Structure formats: structure tokens, C-alpha cells
């Protein structure tokens, strides 16, 4: 992908004015990860109520791709059914970003927030729902993200 295709107005806008930026006190899901390659950091907080995403926020620092994709992901899952969020695939995320053809170095930036989300769901399945069958599946999915 050329830079002009990556750094479109919408990506820059979400980078500079991130939606759902911040923290939730005492969230149901709290997950953090970083990308050692570039030092991108991301933390996501989620509250689940009646099997829906009642609230989601993120904090982090990093490149435009990682931060914009995190913000757009929070918008994508806000208010949605937990089942829908569980089933989200990385293609859905990249489609949502309009970044389907990133190279191998930068695709990790775009998917860091997705990895954080899925890892957070895994912990939630294990700790809160005690649903080991779904958790095992989720664990496998997380290790295959990149």
C-alpha cells in the first residue's frame, strides 16, 4: 500500500482525535500489550452488561496506524453483542480500517488493538465465565493473529 492510501484523512483524524480514549474504573476486561518492534503500547478497558459491550475505552501511544485502528475498533464494538465481538475476524478489522494490503511490518500496528481485544476476551472467558472450551478456541485465535 502506498503512504497516500494508508494515511488517509480518516486515519489521521482518528490518530489526532481518538474516540473512546481513556480508562474505565474497575472494568470487566482490562488488557494491555505492546509491540516490541516499535514500542507501540495499548491498553483496553471493557465493561460487559447483559451480554453486550456496555462501554469500551483505550489508552496508548504509538504510530498513526496503531492508534487510529484502536480507536476505530472501540467504535466498532461499542454496544454490540458479546457473541459478535467474540467472532470478529482480523479481516473485519482491516476492512473497517480500509487497510487490507499492509506489508508484514505494518500489519502488526493495525492489529495490535485487535490482539489486545481478543486476549482480553480470553481472560474474561477464563476468569469470569469459566468457559474453558471457548477460551481454548480464543487462545488459538490470538496466537494466529500475527
Amino acid at each position, binding site marked *: 500500500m502506498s503512504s497516500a492510501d494508508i494515511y488517509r484523512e480518516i486515519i489521521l483524524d482518528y490518530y489526532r482525535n481518538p474516540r473512546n480514549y481513556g480508562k474505565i474504573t474497575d472494568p470487566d476486561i482490562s488488557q494491555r500489550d505492546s509491540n516490541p518492534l*516499535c*514500542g507501540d*503500547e495499548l491498553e483496553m478497558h471493557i465493561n460487559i452488561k447483559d451480554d453486550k459491550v456496555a462501554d469500551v475505552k483505550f489508552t496508548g501511544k504509538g504510530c498513526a496506524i496503531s492508534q487510529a485502528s484502536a480507536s476505530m475498533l472501540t467504535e466498532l464494538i461499542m454496544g454490540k453483542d458479546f457473541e459478535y465481538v467474540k467472532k470478529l475476524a482480523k479481516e473485519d478489522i482491516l476492512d473497517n480500517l480500509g487497510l487490507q494490503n499492509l506489508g508484514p511490518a505494518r500489519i502488526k500496528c493495525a492489529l495490535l488493538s485487535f490482539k489486545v481485544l481478543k486476549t482480553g476476551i480470553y481472560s474474561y472467558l477464563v476468569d469470569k465465565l469459566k468457559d474453558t472450551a471457548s477460551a481454548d478456541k480464543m487462545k488459538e485465535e490470538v496466537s494466529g493473529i500475527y
Partner: protein
Amino acid sequence: MQTSFINIESIRNDFPILKRKVHKDKPLVYLDNAATTQKPIQVIEAISNYYLTYNSNIHRAVHELAEEATLAYETTRDKIAKFINAKNREEVVFVRGTTEAINLVAYAWGRQNINKDDIIVTTEYEHHSNIVPWQLLSKEKGAKLEYIGVDDNGELILDHLDKYLQTGKVKLVAFSQMSNVLGTITDSEEIVKRCKKYGARVLIDGAQSVPHLKVDLQKLDCDFFAFSAHKMLGPTGVGVLWARKELLQDMVPFNGGGDMIREVHKYETTWNDLPYKFEAGTPNIADVIGFAAALDYLDKIGMDKVREHEMELTKYALDKLSQMKGIVLYGPKDVSKRGGVISFNLGDIHPHDLATIIDEDGIAIRSGHHCAQVLMERLDVSATSRASFYIYNTKEEVDVFVKSLNRAKELFKL
């Protein structure tokens, strides 16, 4: 438009890789020399010539190939000793790189000489390779690790060193002769002088300095010195630890195995002479031989000329960059105090995004924390972009670089 000090056209002709194009049709502008430099054809041929005509193991076999290989390998040691003006060739130990050299000292000297409550001093602008081995060692021994701070000009605050030395507990001071991020040239002789007064040993990380400056170990008067071949036209996988003979003699071996022994019995072994005591196993023969060709190449140009060329290029680049709106440049402004390394941030463009954009124009720079997260914390940034020069870089390339930065600014609407 080349600098006045070296014949760039003829130098560039020696580097086959500089003729390649990237992203289909963009000439390669390689500005990531602080990470690793390109290799001239002389180095590549020295390595292939070894494999093609006299490949064999060194030191013990008696056949002709082994004699040729041993001679070529040991000749490199002589050339290194001369290049850094070391007094004795047996003080030159081949390792895999600077990182291994420092770890060797931490293991083979540190574990015998660092005790509980001793202090090891390093600096805020070290590469992780000159921090992590000392963290491991001080944790193991219950020793303390302290840092010489960096001022706003990117130079070390030597008052901090004095404060630690005055405790009388400092056993080792480890610092780089040139910062890989800021390019700052450390006042190494002054530090060594102060350490001597208190009997503290000094280790110098020369990974960034030996490729770019004339280094004279007898003048420096330090105790340990480490550097890598691949940052000075040589191959990867070869580095040098230089240490004082009397220290090497008292140190325990780092690795046990073949070539480092004199006699092995069932329960006892006696060590080989220096430097072989520290070179266990079959070494990286081909690349050590290739390193000699790199040293010859730099010798032919002359390290003074290398330095002058880089100073002129750095000044040219700094003049252009400092005129850009929204740029933050790190490190000393005075080019006599810095090497050809320029770290910067441009507006709110993350270095990773910047590197992606200018890569499209064929320009290779580094972005990230440069294995110096302690310094990133000090600078209060998560990352910087870094352009670093070497003998084959030109002012035209700096122009292409600056033009590309302006394109990045436009893309980010700055």
C-alpha cells in the same frame, strides 16, 4: 556536489548494493549506518575467496589450507591491534559482536570482582547491550547500578560520575564512546582520568566510535574496549573485545571447549594462552578474514578523512533540517561534538509512520527506540527517527532525504 575530503564516486563504485533500486525504480539512499553499514566488494571477495580457495579449520591442522587460513585469521588480529593502537595483539579477543564482548566482561571479570554493595556506573545514553548485562550482574551480586545523566544538549553530566566515585564503592564505569541515538562523542579520556583516581575500572563501548573516529587505546588508557565489525564495512558476527593483559590473565574463561585449553584431564583443565583462552570452539573464520579487508579499506581512506567527510555531511544535513518547521533535533548542535547520527521527530508524525513514508522514496532510516529505552525516557519520547551517515553518503542524498521529509509533512497535513 561531494564533500571535499574523499573521492565518493570511486568509493560508491566499490559497494555493489548502492547500485540497486528499491520500490521498483528508486535509487537506494541508505541512511541506517548506525545499525549496520554496507560492505564493499573487497570484503565480499575476501570472504568468498576463503570459501573458494582455502576453507579449513584453523590453529591445529598441519596441512597447507589450514596454514593459510590460520595466517589470514591471525593477520586480522594484528591489523585490529594496529587499527586501535593496542599495545599487544594477545589483548585482542574475537567475539560475535559488541554485545557478546560486554557480556564476556560481565561474566568473566564481573562475577569475580563485583561484590555486594559495589557500584557499577553506566550512562543514560547507553545501548541496551551496555545496560542489561550490568543489571543481571548487579542483581546477582547485590550490587548497585547507577546512571550518569544526560543534559539538554545531549552530553553526559560528569558531576554525577564524581558523586558516585566519591562513595569509594565504584568498581566499574561502562559507557559508549559515541551515542547511537544522539551521536554525542563522550569525553572518554576525561572519564578515564577521573576513574583512575578512584581505582574504578573502565569499559568503553566503541561500537559507534571505532567505525567513524580514530581510536587510540593507549591514549584512552581504559581497561576494556568493545566493538563490532559489521558497523565498519565488515561482516556480521564478528566483534572484538580488547582488555588489558593482566586483567585477561586473571579472568575465568567465558566458554569452555576446544581451542581454549592447554591440557584437558578427566577433572582438571589448564587454559590456553591469551587470547585463545577466550576463543572456545571453531571461530567465525571467514568473517574475521573479511573484517581484515574492511580494516584495509578504511585504512586506505584514512580515519581522519572519514571523520572530516561525516562532519561536513552532518553539518550540511543539520543546517537543512533545522530550517524545517516542526522538527525537533536531538543531540549536540556543535558537529565537532557529535558523529554522523541525527535523531529527530517531525511534528506529530510517529517515527514509524515517517520511516514508512520515506521508504517509498528509497530512503532507509531507523525509527523506534534504537535499543536505548532509558534514553527515550530521558528525552520523554517513545521513539525517534534516526538518519546516520557513512563514507559513501553524499549531499545529494541528504537533499533527497529532506525532500522526502517534506512530502511526509504534506501527507500528514503539517
